[in-house]
């Protein structure tokens, strides 16, 4: 039985061959496809030679792509505009994706905006590339036809090949890194709760004869443990808290696509938006009671040396309060 990797490599080779022989003269097209098919069969039959046949196929495919395109150009002058456009579009799209991934990796763009940017920017670059390709093609096809050698196009293809060779690994690496969002799933116990919380700012002096300042908000209930369940779409936190001498569990579910999530904690309503900033998940919430907004809460979740660090900032009319809690995994 053919290993999966070899079958996948063979499928890539066949697809590429179909692509660069697309819309060629049928006899030439069929001859090239048959020749590649025969080569593929011979390499699979010659098992003694290849211990890593899939790699061999992919490497032979990759290193021959430029020659394939030049072969196509030599045989089909009509293919010139398509090839030039395809090369520029490929480069433009790769550059666009690379830019957006790096931007999202740096955490400067909220997730939903990133999605919009990803599509919008790639589309605009692709359209710009197509227009530029058309202009350049119009200018250079005259020279190409005059010389009948395709030298100009060959130079362009060489530049495109080198740029693609450089950009593709960078793009892949950026993609892999960008997708490596941490998994906070598990049961966590706070071990260092509130020790780093600074003292609240001193209340402003009461104005002479004025109303007394508003009292600081009541401290949040003491968290005994949190259980996090994370998927690609959402993060669920079951928070075991002690309030008024009793234990209670509050469940918070946050959508990770950038849209708003609404959670209740007794009479308090939290409207929250979640966003990844690199490997940190930031939850920005507005707290309200009976329709009246009374505070903002910003929590950031990140993993550090197998510990879950939760840093929060609460803003209320009474001032700004910060806390930092270190959690260790239960068991």
């Amino acid at each position, binding site marked *: 039985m053919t290993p999966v990797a070899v079958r996948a490599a063979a499928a890539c080779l066949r697809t590429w061959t179909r692509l660069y022989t697309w819309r060629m003269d049928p006899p030439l097209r069929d001859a090239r496809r048959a020749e590649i098919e*025969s080569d593929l069969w*011979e390499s699979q039959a010659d098992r003694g030679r290849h211990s890593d046949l899939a790699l061999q196929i992919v490497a032979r495919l990759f290193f*021959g792509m430029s020659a394939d395109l030049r072969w196509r150009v030599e045989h089909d002058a009509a293919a010139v505009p398509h090839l030039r456009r395809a090369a520029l579009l490929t480069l433009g799209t790769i550059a666009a994706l690379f830019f957006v991934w790096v931007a999202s990796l740096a955490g400067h763009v909220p997730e939903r905006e990133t999605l919009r940017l990803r599509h919008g920017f790639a589309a605009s670059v692709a359209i710009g590339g197509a227009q530029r390709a058309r202009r350049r093609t119009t200018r250079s096809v005259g020279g190409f036809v005059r010389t009948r050698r395709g030298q100009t196009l060959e130079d362009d293809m060489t530049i495109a090949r080198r740029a693609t060779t450089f950009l593709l690994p960078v793009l892949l690496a950026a993609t892999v890194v960008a997708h490596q969002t941490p998994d906070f799933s598990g049961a966590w116990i706070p071990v260092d709760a509130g020790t780093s919380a600074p003292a609240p700012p001193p209340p402003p002096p009461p104005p002479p004869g004025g109303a007394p300042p508003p009292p600081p908000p009541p401290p949040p209930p003491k968290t005994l443990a949190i259980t996090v369940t994370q998927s690609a779409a959402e993060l669920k936190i079951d928070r075991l808290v002690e309030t008024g001498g009793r234990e209670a569990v509050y469940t918070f579910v946050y959508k990770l696509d950038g849209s708003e999530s609404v959670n209740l904690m007794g009479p308090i309503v939290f409207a929250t938006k979640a966003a990844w900033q690199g490997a940190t998940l930031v939850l920005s919430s507005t707290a309200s009671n009976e329709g009246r907004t009374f505070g903002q809460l910003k929590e950031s979740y990140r993993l550090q040396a197998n510990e879950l660090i939760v840093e929060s900032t609460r803003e209320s009319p009474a001032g700004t309060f910060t806390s930092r809690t270190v959690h260790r995994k239960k068991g």
Partner: protein
Amino acid sequence: VRRKAGSLVPLEMSIVEEALELRASRITEFHGYAIAARLADASNRRLLTAYGTLYRALGRLEQMGLLTSRQEDPQIAAAENRPVRRLYSLTEQGAVAARAARAARAPARRSRFRRKGEAPA
């Protein structure tokens, strides 16, 4: 590799030289994979010549009249349960070019040996 008109690039030289050696072994026809395997063996490389590079070079040699090709009898391929091969053979012009390529390489090899102070093998 930029080519001068009518000249052969190193890969094309290697192909015609290998084809000449095959002909000396009374093998007058060969297919693309076979020549790629021989080229890899000759240069002690594991990676065979890339598909595009190999078949473009074979096509150029055919255009220059140094090789001819034909499609093998489909019945033979069907009997052996494999795809049809394209079989190449060296023309007389190709044989002359192969000998010229070999002769052109020999002085270069000799001069290298002399520079290193070694005797040619």
